[in-house]
């Protein structure tokens, strides 16, 4: 399962990761080897097997819709890289 350089770049783009040339080369090699190892799963016939997403019985957990005090604004903004006017500032998204 050899991944091409382009595939690795595409995955990095999907994952929003800026990677150096060295990292791209390393991950191309390592991910190919890991995916080769994963191939052994194809030996099993799972056509009739249901997938397990969680070990718990699937159910919606509901609680009363009661208003509760939120975290204080300033506590949340205290961790922000760039708080501005009570908001999180980011570079412009629209021109």
């Amino acid at each position, binding site marked *: 399962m050899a991944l091409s350089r382009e595939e690795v770049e595409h995955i990095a783009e999907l994952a929003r*990761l800026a990677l150096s040339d060295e990292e791209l080369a390393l991950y191309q090699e390592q991910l190919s080897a890991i995916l080769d190892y994963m191939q052994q799963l194809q030996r099993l016939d799972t056509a009739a*097997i249901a997938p397990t997403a969680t070990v718990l019985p699937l159910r919606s957990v509901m609680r009363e819709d009661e208003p509760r005090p939120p975290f204080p604004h300033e506590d949340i903004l205290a961790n922000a890289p760039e708080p501005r006017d009570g908001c999180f500032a980011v570079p*412009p998204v629209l021109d």
Partner: protein
Amino acid sequence: MALHALTIHEAAARLERGEITSLALTEAVIERILALDNDIQAYITLTPEAALEQARAADARRAAGERGPLLGIPLAIKDVICTQGIPTTCGSRILEDFVPPYDATVVERLRKAGAVIVGKTNTDEFAMGSSTENSAFFTTRNPWDLGRVPGGSSGGSAAAVAADECLGALGSDTGGSVRQPAGFCGVVGLKPSYGRVSRYGLVAYASSLDQIGVLAKDVTDAALLLGAIAGHDGRDSTCVDVPVPDYCAALGEGIAGLRIGVPREYFGAGLQPEVEAAVRAALDTLARLGAQVSEVALPHTEYALPVYYLIAPAEASANLARYDGVRYGLRVEASTLAEQYKQTRGRGFGAEVKRRIMLGTYALSAGYYDAYYLKAQKVRTLIKADFERAFEQADVLVCPTAPTTAFRIGEKVDDPLHMYLTDIFTLSMNLAGICGLSLPCGFDANGLPIGLQIMGRAFDEARVLQVASAYERATAWHQRKPPVGR
């Protein structure tokens, strides 16, 4: 005996009799940390002033008539568990300066019980690793041999407990991250069943597998710690509303007639001969205590590793999407928002975290979802069914915690697949959602501890603790101390 060397229940008894104060106990633990932690490097953050304040408060609560097994007991918390006002880094540059505005439910419960928090322990970045070598800050050293890893990812907590740098600790276990370091460091490590303990405030790695666990000096202490943190929490919809038994109640009971299953697939190639010998000897001990020991089959064991390393990275790639440099954590400035995300994440995450995000993104991406992620979820069903069948024939299963004892620092860092194999005996349990515990069952020729793993049915922690306690009473391995600080 020096105060720092006490177990939780020994210290609680002395506190109860008024022979010591929490303040004296906490001071002793802090002194121990200051004396040893330059060598061991178990802690990322120390909170000595706050700890002494909490110790005085615990002494005041006791003077006012309050009682409790954790009142005034100094504990450590793995640095992936949120602590209000105390940095919680997850061993990552991307959260290096993050200070949570709230306590995790488990921390809230420990504080309510009067525990004293002495600091936050080292971990592989976002709990992804088996040695603490993936911590962005430093590698913790095994107290039994400073040239070796303590295991991981809860290696800081395991090393701190082993070196008496705290009386007990919390860790987290997604594929073995409590049990494997407990085995490597010669302490008791308990991973509760999925849904037994609230994950509210545990920084998410793989949400269908993550569970907070405890690291302790003996089985009684593990039971006490679990009792303090277990139970329903409305803030985690996966935390199940089932009764929490008194975990200490079953500790003194015998195990005559109890059925112990030995999964034959766990004794194959790659198992260090000394580990196999120690585990076989432990099984003989359990048989002498009256248990019925017989072989069981877990035929899909060999698939646990590929299943885990598809499901966990897939969930991680989604969970770690939140680190985007907007609301908290590192930000690397760029002219566009998209570029800022990429630069922040490229610089903020370490090599293993990026590797798993890439792997998980690939497994979830269009065209590969069915072949990898869905396939892994289906094989997960088969692995879970293996355990259901085995637990029809046995009350608990017993096997090694890891195939080898602690390896040397640097030995496996360049080979991710080889590193992943160190968790081969622990991963399946997270996939099946069952509970398990590691406790010491011997030492190899290098004097390194060997871990015995006891697995139980979902929500049957009491049974696992009962078997562990019976074994512990019949042996003396847990009394040995590592050669540090003598």
